[in-house]
Structures are given as C-alpha cells and as structure tokens.
C-alpha cells in the first residue's frame, strides 16, 4: 500500500473523479433498490407479513389469489388431512368506498378473515373488530384522513363500516387493506351481490410437517402454492420488481465497466513505470497488491459515501413514497459493488503481470 496511497494522494483529481462517478452509480443503485424494496412492501406486505406457509387456491387460478374461488367445504377437507395443519379461510375483494360525509373515493382491499384467527394482524391502535360492521384498517388510510370511529362504505350498496382499529404494513396491490369478519363478508356477498354459493378465495395453511407436494396430492380441484408464489401472483408484482431488478443489474454492470476501463487505461499509461519498478526488484504480486488496494479503497469509500447520501435522501422523501432501505439489501448491494470493482481490476492485473522488467533498459524488446 506504500505506492497505492501515495499515488492516490498525488493524483487526487483523477481518482477523485472516478470516485465521484462511483458514488453516483452506487447512490442510484441504492435508491432504486430502496424503491424496489418499498414498492414490494407496498404491493405485497399483507402476504409477506402473514404467518402462513401455503395457500390453497382453486385449480387453474394461476397463483392468483384474486381469481380463485373455493367451496367452503374445502376448509374441513384440509383440516382433516393432518392434525398438525392450521388452516384458515380467506376471502378477498377490491372495492372503492366513500368516507362518510365526503365525496372522495378511496380504494381498499378487503381481506375477510376469522377475527380471532392467526391471520388477524396485531393492532397498533384501537381494538379488534367485535361486531359485524366493525373493521380494522391499514394505518396508511390515516393519510387519507381516516380516524378511529370514522365510517366508510358504499352508498349504492347501502353498507357502512366503522373503523375500530389500525394495523401497520398491510397492503395488497398498492392498496390499503381493510380487515373484516369472514362470516359477515360471506353473508354480505350473498345478500348484496347475489352470490348463490358461499365460497372462499383461499385457505391459508400453516404446518411444520406437511409439505406442498403432499397437500397438492391429497386435495382435488385445488392448487397449492407457497407464500412466495402467492406474492409473485399479485397482479403486476413480477413485472414491477423485474424491471427494477434489471435496472440495478445494469447499474452494477456499468459500475464494473467504468472502473475496469478506468484502471486499465491508467495501467496502460504506467506500463513503462511498471517496467522500471520491476527492474529495481518489485515483484508482480507487490504491484498487484497495490492496485487491488487502490481499487478496494476507492470502492469502499465511494460505497460508504453513497450509503450516507441514500439515508439522507430517505430522510427527506415524503412519507407516502414507497421507499424502504433494508440493511441486508444495502449490505448485499454494497458487497456486490465492491466485488465487481475487484473483478474489473483483474483486467489490469493481467496487464501488469505481462510487463517485462527488461522494458526499462534500452531497446531490448
């Protein structure tokens, strides 16, 4: 590192410039990853936070919760498979409702569950629903001006529900979730929408001993999917995450290329200098260590600065912006950025190894 540090100090300008580019690329990487993470929660937090292993859907519903309708008898069928299985029904629908006394529409995702079951999330404010017309809603509805005790409902159907509790991080398809009693929900569907046969969207299973294949084999006319598959099945989820992941991948490839090319050009410029250094007795390994030292130092400092900047940005972003920085994701991408910079340096290392000390003397070779 004797050479590495002195050269960085001497050529502050050029290394500062490449450092700045690295900071910008890393910063953008972190922001996009924060956005991807935030959008993923915004899209699927209800499923991700659900204490569940598998979902039973109607066959051919293509992993889509919204498409599935299971006869209510299926629940007993599942429960009788194995004593270890914890199964609960789930019904789900998307609605647009009015807050009482207001003309603005609010989109909600209704999740009808058993109020005392494990699917009921913990309540952060207020209490659990006790009566049919009571609901627990996601706290993001507060931003729409909804408070405890407010009522929301559908004027045409003539239904009104009272908000008795709030819960946190429960969103489905970018829409705040409203929890209600599944018994009441089924009655409602039959009464107001004229549904003839009672049905559930899905049966949610938690089990330590039974796996997906066994479930699938023992159930007819049903499709068993894992929680992860259910998340992927949310409309638009795959496409949204896919495009953001691709952006991140491109950014990392760009970072690798910029650095590889930069260090390669600098190495080419220094070929005769390396010849002299080798002639006076520097080994390739010594020169390589110094180069890798420079690359590592630059990458680590750049990544550290970008992490700081990313947290700065996240602090000034509005609350409603779906932006979430997970430390594990942050450290993963940091590690990846540092790793690709070292891979990029291999190109230069190869060139340094090829330099012959003899180039320092006369015209020989």
């Amino acid at each position: 590192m004797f050479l590495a540090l002195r050269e960085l100090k001497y050529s502050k300008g050029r290394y500062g410039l490449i450092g700045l580019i690295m900071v910008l690329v890393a910063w953008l990487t972190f922001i996009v990853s924060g956005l991807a993470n935030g959008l993923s929660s915004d899209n699927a937090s209800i499923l991700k936070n659900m204490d569940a292993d598998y979902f039973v859907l109607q066959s051919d519903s293509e992993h889509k919760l919204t498409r599935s309708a299971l006869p209510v008898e299926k629940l007993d069928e599942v429960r009788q498979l194995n004593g270890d299985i914890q199964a609960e029904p789930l019904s789900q629908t998307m609605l647009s409702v009015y807050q009482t006394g207001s003309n603005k529409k609010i989109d909600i995702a209704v999740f009808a569950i058993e109020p005392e079951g494990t699917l009921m999330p913990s309540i952060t404010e207020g209490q659990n629903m006790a009566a049919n017309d009571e609901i627990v809603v996601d706290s993001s509805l507060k931003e729409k001006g909804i408070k405890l005790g407010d009522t929301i409902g559908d004027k045409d159907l003539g239904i009104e529900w009272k908000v008795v509790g709030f819960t946190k991080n429960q969103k489905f398809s970018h829409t705040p979730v409203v929890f209600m009693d599944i018994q009441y929900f089924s009655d409602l569907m039959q009464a107001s929408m004229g549904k003839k046969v009672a049905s559930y969207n899905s049966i949610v299973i938690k089990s330590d001993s039974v796996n997906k294949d066994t479930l699938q084999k023992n159930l007819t006319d049903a499709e068993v999917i894992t929680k992860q598959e259910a998340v992927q099945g949310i409309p638009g989820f795959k496409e949204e995450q896919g495009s953001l992941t691709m952006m991140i991948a491109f950014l990392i490839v760009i970072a690798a290329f910029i650095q590889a090319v930069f260090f390669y050009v600098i190495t080419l410029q220094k070929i005769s200098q390396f010849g002299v250094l080798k002639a006076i007795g520097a080994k390739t390994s010594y020169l390589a260590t110094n180069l890798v030292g420079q690359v590592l130092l630059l990458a680590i400092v750049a990544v550290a600065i970008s992490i700081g900047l990313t947290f700065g940005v996240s602090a000034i972003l509005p609350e409603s912006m779906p932006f979430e920085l997970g430390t594990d994701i942050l450290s993963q991408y940091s590690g990846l950025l540092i790793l690709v910079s070292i891979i990029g340096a291999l190109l230069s290392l190869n060139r340094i190894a090829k330099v012959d000390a003899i180039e320092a003397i006369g015209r020989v070779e």
Partner: protein
Amino acid sequence: MKEKLVLENVNKIYGDGETAVTALQKVSLTVKEGEFVAVVGPSGSGKSTFLSIAGALLSPTSGRILINQKDVTHLTSREMSDVRVKNLGFIFQASNLVPYLKVLDQLLLVSKLAGKVGKEAEQKAKELLDQVGLLHRMNYYPEKLSGGERQRVAIARAFMNDPGVILADEPTASLDSKRGRAVVELMASEVKQRGKAAVMVTHDERVLDLCDRIVTIKDGMLYEKKADIVNKDKKPEASVLG
C-alpha cells in the same frame, strides 16, 4: 580485490531458426570491487542486451553469470527479482523515477522492496541524499526537479540497498554535457568510496576519462584494449553538480 560481477562465455541469441539474431557472442568480463567500467559500441551492437544479462533481467542462451559471487544463470523470474533488489543498483536513461513519489520516498521504496523498513532506512536515505547534495529537495516530487537532480536521485536510489554492482544505461543521455559529466563524476566517486563494481553503457565520449576501463562491443563481441585504460587519479569534483 573481490570479483563482484563475472560474465563467462556468454552467448545470447534472440529467436530461432531463420530469424535468429546473435546479439552477444562469447562475451566474458570480470569487474572487481571499486572498478568503474564503461561499455561503448555502435548502435545495435548488443550493449543493452549485455546490460540486461548482467542485470539479471534476461537469461543468456549459454554461459555463466556471477553476481556477488552468486551464480544467477539459471534462476526463476521471482528469484531474479530478489537478486536485483538486493545485489544490483540500476540507473536508467530517463523518466526512471516514480512520478508520484517524493524524493525521500523514491529511496524508501527500494528498501521496502528489500523488506527493510523503519528509522534505519530513513536515516540511510537521508545520508545518501545528503551525499548527492539533494537533502533540501527531500520532499519534492520528481516533476519539480531538474534533469540532473533527477539523475542524482536515481544514483542515490541505486545505492540504497548497498548492492555489490551498479548498472547504468546511458545515464547522461538526457542531460547537457556539463551536467552529464557531473552525474558521472558523482557515480565514480560513490563507486570508489563504497567499493562497488559499476558498469555504464554510454555514447558520451566526454565522460570516458572518468572510468577505469573501457570495453567496446561490436557485432556482439566484446573487446578491451588495455591501452584504453585511462588515468584514475583524476578526482571528481562534487561542486559542479547541476
């Protein structure tokens, strides 16, 4: 007097078959402690090849090379690096200083490469810089030095690890004649004072009188005319250094 550098029947052939070029033919030379040898010859005669082989930078096709009484003829490139860093001091034509190292660091780097660090190396470096009259330029980058000053730093660097043999490749090529002469005078006095063996390839006839022996290479063969031995009593003057 000890023999510091010995070349015995060295041949060097570049390439093979039709395109083979014989660069050195049966070259033998012995340089003793305190001797300063100049190598002259026309362009393409094999001087650089000779210096590269003597400097453990290139392996000969046949023959034997002893540096500090150690046979270095058949070493791996790693071992050759070690020989160079411990036993040889190089002075090159030009631009041989590392541009981003200050003068003192130029010298410290060499001792670092030999695995020596600490106060002792720094002490030694300062002593050498004092001797070449550049202690006051200790914290300068090479770009801030004149050509002569740079060559003097290179000389100090060559002596840093106390090598047995000093090899110089046209050290005066980039200097005007007055400074060139001062640089060679400095080399000569250091070689004498420290009991080194030195070989210098040069085109500069005006500095030949400072050397103890002059050998000529022509078409890959080495000739030494005993009559060419010049008087050694001439004292170099350090005061005219550029």
